[in-house]
């Protein structure tokens, strides 16, 4: 039983329950893989001691025939989830030494389910980015970067560390958060599955806020079934988050069959962008064919306000962020750079504590909320957001789920597009609409680009219908038979 770190959640769970493997053994394998692959820079903080203690406790419970649905399964957590007693940085210098005295609801649920914390994964600073290059802890390397190829490919973002860790076999699964595509786009770039559930499905309590009306926690794994299993343990109503939904969580992983027969799958015509690489177009068409072949009916639908989605997103998200990040003022926790007086201390603390992209978005957000600009930007964006929601409502009157590419390209190299924020923002063109409408979405690896990099397909569902999203994703997964392995992983 070598290469335990290659096991998926469902497989490992079966072996753990049979006591064929131990949680400590499995955890050690992951910790070793993390150590071997530190060059990926996937983790900001590794927690080996805590991991082994948790794994030991899990083994004890398993030995007694007890344990939760994730008992003994090691996972990584995006460093945006507050973990009690474990440094939580949000990828920012301003929180570089912040150790929360509380646990996020999502991670608390995971530990209650028996999961083991391997460490906190790297991310774009405050989850603002699509390449994981804005992290104060350095960029993450995509494990699909061939040895010697430089500069390396980005893993996508903002949950780039989680995606790289799962894709590079450092851990079987990881949590992420998705505000405009931050789970689905890195999943696509790294050749793994990433799901963002409906807004309100997972509690936001204890997750460092970026844009509160868009932020949603989700899961990364190497299979749809594994992603479903992890998400199921994360989801559920939380009275501590007023926007979390008081709805039961279905048994997604247990009911997963990959059956799409009779389902109507919508293809939004506005997602055919000018200048989109033909390989993306081809992949999308192939995905549609796979579903048709399995008995789904493909229908063309229209989402007419799609072209306003990016501008809308880049008003709403920075507006909320400018307010959400006001608390990092150096007064109570985190970095403080003392200046001449109070205002100077604020300026120095925030000027030195925040990176360029975060500062840019705070400025944009402050601007669009300012007197005299509010109506033209923020209020207008809210109205467009409503139209986008209505677009989806109309589309879902004609179909059960939508199929789109996840991102308009494969992974690019670190440093590429870094001088052009708008080009960077275009990465999110297929994903932000889903956040604006609060819908569930998943990215499934579906093929490789000509350059040998993974490409993902996105399935978008109706509100609260993660079940259908997972079914369609499972069908795609089965048809795609994505077996390619990332070349940039250091083996034992």
């Amino acid at each position, binding site marked *: 039983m070598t290469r335990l770190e290659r096991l998926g959640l469902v497989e490992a769970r079966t072996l753990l329950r049979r006591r064929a493997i131990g949680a400590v053994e499995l955890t050690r394998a992951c910790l070793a893989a993390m150590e071997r692959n530190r060059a990926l820079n996937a983790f900001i903080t590794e927690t080996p001691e805590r991991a082994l203690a948790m794994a030991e406790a899990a083994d004890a419970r398993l030995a007694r025939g007890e344990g939760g649905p994730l008992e003994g399964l090691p996972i990584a957590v995006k460093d945006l*989830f*507050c973990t009690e007693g474990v440094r*939580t940085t*949000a990828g920012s210098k301003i*929180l570089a030494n*912040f150790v*929360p*005295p*509380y646990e*996020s609801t999502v991670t608390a649920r995971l530990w209650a389910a028996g999961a083991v914390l391997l460490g906190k994964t790297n991310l774009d600073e405050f989850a603002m980015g699509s390449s994981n290059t804005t992290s104060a802890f350095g960029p993450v390397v995509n494990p699909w970067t061939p040895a010697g190829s430089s500069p390396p490919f980005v893993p996508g973002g903002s949950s780039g560390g989680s995606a790289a860790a799962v894709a590079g076999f450092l851990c079987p699964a990881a949590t992420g958060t998705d505000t405009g595509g931050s789970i689905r786009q890195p999943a696509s770039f790294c050749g793994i599955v990433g799901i963002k559930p409906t807004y309100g499905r997972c509690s*936001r*309590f*204890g*997750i*460092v*806020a970026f*844009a*509160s*009306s868009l932020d949603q926690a989700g899961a990364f794994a190497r299979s749809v079934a594994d992603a479903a299993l992890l998400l199921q343990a994360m989801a559920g109503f939380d*009275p*501590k*988050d*007023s*926007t979390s939904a008081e709805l039961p969580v279905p048994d997604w992983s247990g009911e997963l069959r990959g059956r799409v027969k009779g389902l109507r799958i919508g293809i939004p015509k506005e997602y055919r962008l000018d200048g989109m690489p033909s390989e993306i177009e081809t992949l999308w068409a192939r995905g549609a064919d796979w579903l048709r072949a399995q008995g789904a009916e493909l229908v063309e639908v229209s989402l007419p306000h799609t072209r306003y989605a990016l501008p809308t997103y880049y008003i709403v998200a920075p*507006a*909320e962020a*400018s*307010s959400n*990040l*006001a*608390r990092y*003022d150096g*007064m*109570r*926790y985190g970095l403080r750079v003392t200046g001449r007086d*109070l205002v100077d201390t*604020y300026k120095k603390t925030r000027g030195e504590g925040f990176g360029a992209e975060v500062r840019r978005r705070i400025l944009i957000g*402050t601007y669009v*909320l*300012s*007197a005299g600009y*509010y109506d033209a930007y*923020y209020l207008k964006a809210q109205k467009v957001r409503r139209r986008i929601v209505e677009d989806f409502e109309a589309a879902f009157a004609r179909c059960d789920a939508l199929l789109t590419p996840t991102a308009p390209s494969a992974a690019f190299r670190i440093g590429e597009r870094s001088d052009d924020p708008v080009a960077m923002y275009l990465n999110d063109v297929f994903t932000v609409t889903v956040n604006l409408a609060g819908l569930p979405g998943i990215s499934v690896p579906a093929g490789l680009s000509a350059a040998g990099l993974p490409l993902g397909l996105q399935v978008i569902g109706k509100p609260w219908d993660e079940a259908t999203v997972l079914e369609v994703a499972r069908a795609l997964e089965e048809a795609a038979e994505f077996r390619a392995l990332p070349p940039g992983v250091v083996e034992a």
Partner: protein
Amino acid sequence: MAWTIAGRTGEWELVCGLEVHAQVISKAKLFSAAATEFGAEPNSRVSPVDAGMPGMLPVLNGFCVEQAVKTGLALEAEINRVSIFERKNYFYPDLPQGYQISQYQQPIVGRGRILIDLPDGTSRAIGITRLHLEQDAGKSLHGAREGVTLIDLNRCGVALMEIVSEPDIRAPEEAVLYLKKLRSILRYVGTCDGNMEEGSLRCDANVSVRRVGDPRFGTRCEIKNVNSMRFVAKAIEYEARRQVDILESGGVVEQETRLFDAARGETRSMRGKEEAHDYRYFPDPDLLPLELDEALIERLRAELPELPDAKRARFVSDYGLSAYDAGVLVAERAAADYFEAVAKGRDAKFAANWVINELFGALARRGLEIEACPLPAEALGEILDLLAEGTISGKIAKEVFQEAFDSGARPRAIVEAKGLRQVTDAGAIEPVVAKLVADNPQQAENARKNPKIVGWFVGQVMKATGGKANPALVNELVKKALGLG
């Protein structure tokens, strides 16, 4: 209340509206479960939500919402079925989130009114523009330690009701009456304790002036920190006169925020219009719109107590009290309840006099609120009964009252223990009278010519009997002894 400022060039009228911040009575804060009591160890009543820790989220305290609705109902105001919490963004060390959660475009309570009771016995309505819920900030303690500012976040996140009046106030004294009435209503419904010293009721005043008869409003200044009943009128009057002086000397009133300096009795500029913050209000995405259902509103309406205006009207009609006395009695619900307990089955006007004059006087001398009154209503009733029965005289009654108030002993027991029963036995008084007349022949002679001097003899007899003699009987016996009967 016609109140004008006589300027060199004519008469000026005051236009004033008040913004009152009333701390909601609630065990927990508006969006966190931290406790709210006053005077706790600094920073000991702070949850991670109040401290603006990363990832913390506000959860609305339903009780505070009920308190706001109750207050709205008591102000005869519209209750908005849907209201929105918004973020008011600004940086300050005692504002940990970097924004205050408040209500802006859609407050929980809309238009209402307060009736103020003018000294001439009439009432005047002052409009309420709105009432909204918001979080309080923490406290900055400057200069407590050399070179640093200390922050106490205990108050941070405590629920406030901001109650905004229309610019209907026309005299400084009306502002005081408005505040007193508002405070009275808040205390009646139990939504704010109205304690201005502890800061649970804070007031800012918007002041402008205009020539009498001019329908247009002048430029207003907002006066911060008029935080005692004593200073409200002073601050408003000072500010109005300042504005009149500026306008009469050809100047222009600048719209600005001014601070009232109680020590100097003047207002001074805090910040001008240009320095005004851009608060960048926007709906708080962490909170859903607040929807109120009819059943809740009706339940709260049913729970409302009889309010001061209704109680005052009832005291006038049922007890025959003057509007003024009734107004004094109903200002505090506990005082009104006390009065009613004393008046039950007794002469109500008499009871009112005793409560207003003796009881309120005694409380004021000891600096006590009615809630802490050491003399139970039944005890005061007992004194009135002793008086009515003729067991004690009015003078003795006051002594008994003071004794009972100070010692807590029952009035009847005091009367018995000290032998204070009124002497109504003529046989016991006659010798005293006879001796006095005999000892003071000149006075007796004077009294026969001028019957007003009879009173001197009555007084002497009362003194000699320790006040226990029945004054009417003494009067009769003195007259008889002087041959005036």
